[in-house]
């Protein structure tokens, strides 16, 4: 009887967004007279950081510091329509809508500044620190706050913008399945190392090491949050979780967290990640989405690592000690 180590891999791609029935999201961006911007959405932040990501995207597109932007969501009276937060669509769809809205608002802002500076708006640039100046002449400047105030109190302009991003519906061809499921894919490859106790059937995940291609990491800390938490969920799906331990038998269903098993803080493993960025041609600054794909590859990687360790294939999730022991027994022990 022994604890045996094994490594397994999995490589995957992930479709960004959905196409069914069309997939739009909208955004409104507007400035108060002090040059501080609000993004109004109806998109949902479930913890994935949607508010924070689109805040950075909006600041980038406006050319103002991120401190000067806040995201207000979700109120159906003030936020325009969004399909919702699912299908890894938030960064891509909402991000693009916010860019469109921010660019329109920026256009008005630069027009207002141009009128004050008596130059052509096309000759103006923002410095990302709250100023607008003539290209090549940083001293000929006006602050975003002054331009915004002038627009609203002197020129009668609304410093605001509307944006929508729509991926139109794609209907699969009934005969061939030809379709446009999505417009871009993210990618990943995960290596899992496990230790399998061939006496108890227990699996300990030693490490998860993975490369993720995300288009553009909009905020590396938020990407890391998804990868670490998603890696944990993948490991949890692989080894612990089920609402029906003897599926398809509906009995034995867990009804609390003592029965519904997930790895606790003492069960986690070391996780290391490498990030690749191949910008999506239609992504906001190339961004794709990483929220869902990160929980997927650990599952097959762990299954393959278990085989590498003890020579049994567990093709039904989750890979419980019971299933592993039964398979080992049938095989006549670990190989």
């Amino acid at each position, binding site marked *: 009887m022994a604890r045996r180590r094994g490594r397994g891999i999995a490589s995957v791609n992930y479709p960004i967004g959905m196409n069914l029935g069309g997939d739009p999201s909208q955004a409104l961006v507007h400035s108060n007279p002090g040059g501080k911007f609000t993004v109004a959405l109806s998109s949902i932040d*479930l*913890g*994935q*950081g949607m508010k924070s990501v689109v805040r950075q995207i909006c600041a980038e597109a406006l050319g103002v510091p*991120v*401190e000067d932007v806040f995201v207000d969501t979700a109120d159906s009276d003030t936020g325009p329509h969004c399909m919702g937060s699912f299908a890894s669509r938030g960064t891509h769809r909402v991000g693009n809508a916010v860019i469109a809205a921010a660019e329109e608002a920026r256009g008005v802002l630069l027009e207002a500044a141009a009128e004050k500076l008596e130059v052509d708006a096309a000759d103006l640039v923002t410095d990302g620190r709250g100023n607008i100046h003539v290209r090549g002449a940083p001293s000929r400047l006006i602050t975003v706050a002054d331009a915004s105030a002038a627009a609203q109190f002197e020129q009668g302009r609304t410093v605001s913008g509307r944006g929508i991003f729509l991926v139109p519906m794609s209907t699969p061809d009934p005969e061939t399945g030809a379709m446009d499921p999505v417009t871009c894919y993210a990618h990943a490859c995960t290596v899992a190392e496990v230790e399998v106790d061939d006496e108890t059937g227990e699996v300990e995940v030693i490490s998860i090491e993975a490369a993720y291609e995300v288009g553009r990491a909009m905020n*590396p*800390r*938020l990407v*890391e*949050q998804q990868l*670490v*938490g*998603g*890696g*944990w*969920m993948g490991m949890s799906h692989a080894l612990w979780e089920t609402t029906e331990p003897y599926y398809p038998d509906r009995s034995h269903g867990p009804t*609390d*967290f*003592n029965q519904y098993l*997930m790895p*606790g*803080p*003492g069960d*986690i493993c070391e*996780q290391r990640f490498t990030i690749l960025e191949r910008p999506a041609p239609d992504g906001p600054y190339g961004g794709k989405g990483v929220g869902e794909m990160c929980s997927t590859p650990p599952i097959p990687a762990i299954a393959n690592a278990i085989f590498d360790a003890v020579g049994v294939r567990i093709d039904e999730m989750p890979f419980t000690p019971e299933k592993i022991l039964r398979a080992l027994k049938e095989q006549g022990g670990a190989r």
Partner: protein
Amino acid sequence: MSHVTLDFRLNGTGRTELIAGGETLLSLLRHRLDTTSIKQGCRQGTCGSCTVIVDGEPRLACITLAATCDGCTIETAESLPGPGGLHPLQQAFMDHFAAQCGFCTTGMLMAAKALLAANPSPTREDVVDAISGNICRCTGYQPIIEAVLAAAGAGPSGAGQPGGSRPGVV
């Protein structure tokens, strides 16, 4: 239903409340006294989202009878920030990006606070043990453990170094 009078201190303020005999601490604090940092995640005593500190001990408010807290001192996350701003644990949770959806966060913070009060220099195993009754579905626990260790390392005056986040942007 019989009612009893309960005297206790909540976040530094003395309170006297008339409570029903079977009333839980969760019901009293969250539903009647609007201490909404206490989250209701399972009401089975299995998720830890309602963790509060009663006389220095972490307790699950959902399975604690309010009547057992007569004369007790109760702390919730509302009491964490000090005059100088956020509590070092709160700052460390921010710096380590230890909150995603935020629902388990206040319970985690109270479990961690009780730990650090009893054991100012915990090992990683101590931290794991202290938060093992608190479910987090988002983070994978790693940043939470790191945040608690950093807050402990920084002592009462401040938290560990931010891991690259931009100070001042909230």
